């Protein structure tokens, strides 16, 4: 699909056993060149049943939810509940570097694939277990979806307006922060292995990953013994708030060069008392935030938002327009940096535009090497090439429903 030099993680083999909650983790590694094998049950991964679907036609090979998280992976179907299936996984684990799983705690042990077994079979293997509450503690066996995790991780309470219900984050951010921490933990364990030759077991709690991804709440408590409230669109720092323009919303910011901002507002005749020298001090603007934004709201209300943005950024004011995500696909900056990648889906005779990775590595660029796999698309080749299985043996596994 792309001309590929080896990625930074070329040569690493990752077995991805995760269900829909943790699939971004292995994708982050696959994007950097690791060989990721997505191990799914013969009926297909649970993510394949989650929409949206291509052209809104539900089918396990048309789930955009699955596509997003499974680019750059191969698929092996394997019934891990079947002893032959677990045995095959163990054989693959002997030559793998990393196994990532997100089963309920204890499941890997029940499958005969617990840490003790994996570590004995392959002492260099890193096992990353991603569970809603981790592998220990009173909530260990509790269940959660992303919304429940954002609640228990403190990410939900602080968004929205006082006296209204909290507003949920866009996207599955409890899952996404957990995936990033998972990939970071895997890389740390791999780097440690350079010295020790030993793999490690990573016990990642999604609740904790969510709590770690909230900027200000812990600080608010440990500094002032307070629960940070919901403040509407006023950022907790009190230097940002949403304002309404003639044709939509913008994000104000009072952390840019104050003098040039106020000269502009004054030249529009809308500065009120904001030219008072006291406002030069960020701390004064912090204290007076509600008033400052009220005056600035009055100033922007007749501006078209795109014009405001262009002029603000020319003056190096960190203003932004409040845009829908559709705008990203026309964003010249993202297009110019090659953030979007067109990925061929040959079986459909179509190509689709995917969002890419957030970094450009000048030595080992991020690459799309594979479109998301069809269910079990690579089962045969993996068993044949990696485990040297005979075609007859593979046929028997298929007939028995193991693959």
């Amino acid at each position, binding site marked *: 699909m792309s001309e590929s030099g080896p990625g930074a993680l070329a040569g690493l083999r990752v077995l991805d056993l995760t269900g829909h909650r943790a699939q971004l983790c292995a994708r982050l590694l696959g994007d950097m060149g690791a060989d990721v094998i997505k191990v799914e049950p013969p009926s297909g991964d649970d993510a394949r049943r989650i929409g949206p679907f291509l052209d809104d036609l539900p089918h396990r090979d048309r789930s955009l939810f699955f596509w997003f998280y499974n680019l750059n992976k191969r698929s092996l179907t394997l019934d891990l509940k079947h002893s032959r299936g677990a045995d095959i996984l163990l054989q693959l684990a002997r030559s793998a570097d990393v196994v990532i799983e997100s089963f309920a705690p204890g499941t890997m042990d029940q499958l005969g694939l617990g840490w003790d077994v994996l570590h004995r079979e392959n002492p260099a293997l890193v096992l990353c277990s991603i569970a809603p509450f981790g592998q220990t503690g009173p909530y260990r066996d509790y269940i959660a979806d992303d919304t429940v995790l954002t*609640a228990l991780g403190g990410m939900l309470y602080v968004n929205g307006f006082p006296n209204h219900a909290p507003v949920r984050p866009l996207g599955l951010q409890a899952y996404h922060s957990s995936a990033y921490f998972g990939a970071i933990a895997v890389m740390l364990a791999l780097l440690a292995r350079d010295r020790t030759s030993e793999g490690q077991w990573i016990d990642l709690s999604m609740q904790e990953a969510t709590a770690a991804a909230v900027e200000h709440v812990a600080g608010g408590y440990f500094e002032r013994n307070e629960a940070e409230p919901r403040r509407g669109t006023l950022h907790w720092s009190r230097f940002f708030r949403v304002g309404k323009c003639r044709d939509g919303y913008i994000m104000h910011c009072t952390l840019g060069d104050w003098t040039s901002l106020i000269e502009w507002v004054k030249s529009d005749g809308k500065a009120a008392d904001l030219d008072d020298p006291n406002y030069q001090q960020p701390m004064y603007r912090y204290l007076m935030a509600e008033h400052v934004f009220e005056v600035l709201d009055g100033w922007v209300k007749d501006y078209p938002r795109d014009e405001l943005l262009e002029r603000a950024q020319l003056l190096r004011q960190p203003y932004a327009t409040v*845009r829908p995500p559709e705008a990203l696909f026309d964003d010249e900056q993202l297009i110019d940096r090659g953030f979007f990648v067109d990925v061929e889906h040959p079986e459909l005779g179509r190509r689709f535009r995917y969002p890419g990775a957030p970094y450009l590595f000048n030595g080992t660029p991020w690459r799309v090497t594979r479109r998301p796999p069809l269910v079990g698309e690579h089962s045969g080749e993996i068993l044949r090439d990696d485990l040297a299985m005979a075609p007859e043996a593979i046929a028997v596994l298929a007939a028995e429903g193991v693959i």
Partner: protein
Amino acid sequence: MCAMPLDGVRILDFTWVVAGPVATRILGDHGAQVVKVERKDPPPMGNRKLGLQCDLHRSKLSVALNMQHPRGVELARRLAAMSDIVMDNFSARVMRMWGMDYESLTAVKPDIICISMSGLGHTGPRSSYVSYGPTLQALTGYTQLMAEPDGTPAGYGYSYADMCGGYSGALAALVALWHRRRTGKGQFVDLSQFEAVASVIGPALLDISVNGRTQSPPGYNSQEGPAAPHGVYKCRALDGDNDNDRWVAISVGTGPEWRRFVTAIGSPEWASDAKFRTLYLRMQNSAELDANVSRWTIEHSAEDAMAVLQRAGIAAGVVENGVDLCARDPQLKERGFWPEVSTKKGVTTHVTGIPFKLSGGSGAVRTIAPEVGEDFDYVLGELLGLGKSERDELVADGAVWP
């Protein structure tokens, strides 16, 4: 203390505000020696020994170098020559102006890894845009689609974009380090915080590009398969407390879950109404369903509602505020998620922990955050090997602040 994964790795850290410090903090927690270079009078952001600033700068050293002074820059270049990774979150021109950009540094350290975590990236027509987390959240869709039911934008109450930028920065550093250990080659990573937060919007992006669908605020509709009831429901205050801002999040999916849910809340009459018989009908009639569920939750504390539902195998959780999270949550407490750190004078506080444990016993919050320039003697004396008189002379010359 046992060995940590990044023992022996040194990072020269020019980052500031939030995203960059989050990245280098993660590396510092796992053994890297992070030398934070800053100016003597950074904009006041709060007490380094407490709260957010301690969270951001713990497990690091601080030295105050005057980068407007040629000898300050020279010290920075000498530090870079003995570092593995140099990280910043400036726009492209700043490091270039100092001669601290990747090309310049390869002259003093051929296998250096440079990670620049700017707002919109070093290339492209808008690389000069100035941005903070909320700016990027507005540009990417979070502010608009995290909305009230009537469509009024609410957005995040904080800078989630900075966290995304920080995590991808830490990951990029580790990946580049892995690659260098195998090939001997360093590289330059041009990270865009804008792209970091845009990329984690998730599958909705493909719904736009593949299906051409305009996204509307999802509210509490499940984004991971159909579910109803699904959302947050108002609860009563805890006994002896008058805080009424109490909510429980509940997610009920398939038929068996619904039946367990109904039993758990005492099989109220409304639950047998035909309009709630199937998941499809429950979603169609979700407003009425939610009103009924709220009539149950308002009779319970969020903690009780969560316990009752979890016992029945239903995903439910308290919408935790800062006090719940940091002082009450039994799970976080049991797992030691808020470790204690102390100042040299023995004043203690708690900071945010590390959300994963390695069986080899590694990551830890190693030291409380340093004051600006606190590690002057160590960095100039031990790392750079400058004697007392040389250090005094550099201070007198204004190249460095003690």
